[in-house]
């Protein structure tokens, strides 16, 4: 039965056992009640208007029974859930720390080795990771179903969660706390690598990525960045308006700004719009786009511009 997602962290299995445990208790109570309902409704259906019925007002023993048994069961459920939860809240000393900042509407990860990534969290298989989180604006929530972990990110305070990934692969990361228009687009990936691959990534992603990426023409690299860096959360390429203006037909066109002036969307304007978005605000939009200065390299920006040019 595939009603639980794949298990890819060490306590995914334990959480699932709790879920199964509660499911079985629930199923038993539910089936008992359903049998009672259906059986009685059929067996004692009204045969005539003058059916005789007994005057039964209650039965202390039975009532005690179905007070005490559920009480015991729910206490067991509580304790079991608590025990597993306590372990989920107690990271081991040797866990690798990663800092996460949630912003409307992207994830920014900072690693201890000084690297930083957007919307992609790189971790190593079988190595515990402690994710220390904070929010730049409203509340977000870091949710990786395959790991069975979730924790809100809150402005003005740090929160954390931890997990040990057990499977190499790419896993979905969702924002689970409603955070505005781009909430459903605030998606990311957790990339679990084998120790060797992780080592290589640590030593220099550029090399590795660079090789693959170097072969790409700029506009295709731009398209890749458009998806990976989360531009697609706010900018469509089909002409529809999301949180930000569409990129379709943007290049070379007049853009009206909030201060009443207009500019032509040339390379410089777009470059500035990406690096310091609040410098020139497009009319009809709020100041919500994060600044990508220091996050996107000059080459990246050039690639994105090349990509925007293709969107006629």
């Amino acid at each position, binding site marked *: 039965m595939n009603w639980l997602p794949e298990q890819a962290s060490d306590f995914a299995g334990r959480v699932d056992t709790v879920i199964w445990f509660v499911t079985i208790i629930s199923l038993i109570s539910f089936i008992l*009640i359903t049998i009672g*309902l259906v059986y009685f*409704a059929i067996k004692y259906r009204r045969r005539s208007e003058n059916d005789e*019925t007994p005057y039964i007002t*209650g039965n202390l023993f039975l009532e005690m029974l179905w*007070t005490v048994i559920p009480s015991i069961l729910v206490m067991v459920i509580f304790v079991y859930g608590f025990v597993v939860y306590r372990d989920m809240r107690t990271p081991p000393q040797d866990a690798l720390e990663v800092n996460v900042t949630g912003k409307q509407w992207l994830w920014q990860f900072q690693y201890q080795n000084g690297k930083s990534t957007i919307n992609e969290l790189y971790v190593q298989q079988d190595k515990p990771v402690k994710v220390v989180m904070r929010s730049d604006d*409203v509340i977000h*929530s870091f949710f990786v*179903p395959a790991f069975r972990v979730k924790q809100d990110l809150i402005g003005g305070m740090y929160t954390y969660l931890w997990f040990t990934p057990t499977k190499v692969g790419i896993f979905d990361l969702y924002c689970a706390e*409603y955070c505005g228009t781009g909430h459903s687009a605030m998606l990311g990936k957790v990339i679990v690598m084998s120790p060797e691959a992780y080592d290589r990534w640590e030593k220099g992603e550029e090399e590795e990525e660079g090789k693959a990426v170097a072969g790409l023409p700029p506009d295709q690299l731009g398209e890749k960045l458009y998806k990976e860096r989360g531009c697609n959360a706010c900018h469509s390429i089909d002409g529809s308006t999301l949180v930000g203006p569409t990129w379709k037909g943007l290049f070379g066109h007049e853009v009206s700004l909030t201060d009443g002036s207009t500019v032509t969307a040339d390379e410089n304007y777009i470059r500035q719009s990406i690096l310091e978005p609040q410098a020139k605000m497009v009319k009809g939009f709020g100041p919500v786009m994060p600044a990508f200065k220091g996050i996107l390299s000059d080459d990246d920006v050039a690639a994105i511009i090349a990509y925007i040019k293709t969107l006629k």
Partner: protein
Amino acid sequence: MANHTIAETLYVPYLDEKGILSWLLSTDHKRIGIMYLISISTSFLIAGISSLLMRLELIAPGKTIVDAHQYNVLFTFHGTVMVFFFIVPGLAASLGNFLIPLMIGARDVAFPKLNLGSYWLYLLGATILLISLLKPADTGWTFYTPYSIKTGTDVILLTTGIFILGMSSILTGLNFIVTIHKLRAPGMTWHRLNLFVWASYATAILQLLATPVVGITLLLLIMERVFGIGFFDPAKGGDPILFQNFFWFYSHPAVYIMILPAFGVISEIIPVFSRKPIFGYKAMAYSLLAIALISFLVWAHHMFVSGMSEVAATIFSFLTMLVAIPTAIKVFNWTATLYKGSIQLHSAMLYALSLIFLFTIGGLTGVFLGSLAVDVHLHDTYFVVAHMHYVMIGGTVMGFFGALHFWYPKMFGKMFNEKVAKVAWALIFIGFNVTFFPQFILGTLGMPRRYADYPPEFHSLHELSTIGSLILGIGVFIMTVNLLRGLTNGEKAPENPYNSVSLEWQVPSPPPHENFEKIPVVTDYPYVYGKKNTQEG
């Protein structure tokens, strides 16, 4: 109205006086009940239509009919209208108003004018909600800060509307508590009260004492937006989780404001259609109070992953489990009432039985969410959406529909078409399950709630859910039309079509303005069905 004695008056049904003002200015509890009934049903249908739009958007990944912002507006509207305009005032104010005085043998509630005032407040709140639609809010029905402080949409008007509705709710609760304490007919002791009255009493306590807290919370939210005070804004040293604590201090008890009257309703329906006394009357009565009292202790189970302290999470998970116990007693006692009965599957009874079945699913999934380790995974996923609809529709709305069919002849003196009612019930029952059962699976698979768009792997289950919602919509539509047609084309109802022994059926249908020609003297509780000497059959 006040001074003539009954003996001089002929029987004049309360419905007879015509003209809109004779309604809007009436202090007759029955008329006020009917006005609430019309208002909340309208709210339900409107919010239901908005949910159909949401479901249509979700029928496939990508944009279907609305964009992300419009989707957010839709679920905010759906959630706030369903919760604050339909289900919280819902059964309590409409059925409570209509039935409590009839059931306790009184001529009206304790403060009839205040009662009318409550209804006007409701209308005022609804008007403000409508104005707020010029720039509809997109916060979700929970108004979590700091998003609700920052968003550019009109949160102030919407929360003002809800604040006013809160006042209405408080005054209704107050009125009912006083009525039940002070206006019972001679001989109507506490252990002879209808369970619906007990349920209304427990609900009224929650309305009276939980609502002010959400009132001040929303007021503070408004002040944050207007004056920039910083209780909930981390940028100003405030604490966003404090908002959640305050909000749920009300909103958890509020879920029992929603469900308790429905529990009351089916405790009336089941004995009548099984011709058996309710099983364990006292346990049923006191479990209602127990639920109401415990419900104040569990609010933070909505916040297990919010960054609240682990200590608090543990305390609240423990306390949450406790509510399951009185509820379990109720579920088992209803089932036991059927034993050796003479069961008639009237449409009202079908809804009552569906309530037991569906609410059990909803309640048990609540226990999943109350368990800490499980909630971490399931929080803010479609599992929660499914849970709440199973308890709110499978519980409250089933109770509401059951009540409509059950007291329809009492309220209007007419009959609806029973066959059509059964067809509508079947469509609603099937449609409901097809809509919301897949959502449990979506949730465990990790589909987050409040998503305007979703990854393709969730497509088929969402599609199924949308199809279900259309079946459900058709069912609701047929039911509505059937009930409305009954008003104009229905046959005249017999005085007491189900041979109920409960007090409200002993007066003519529809009841006269004064309810009772003579104030009755009550000698037994309202569930004396069956042969008394066959204690054990």
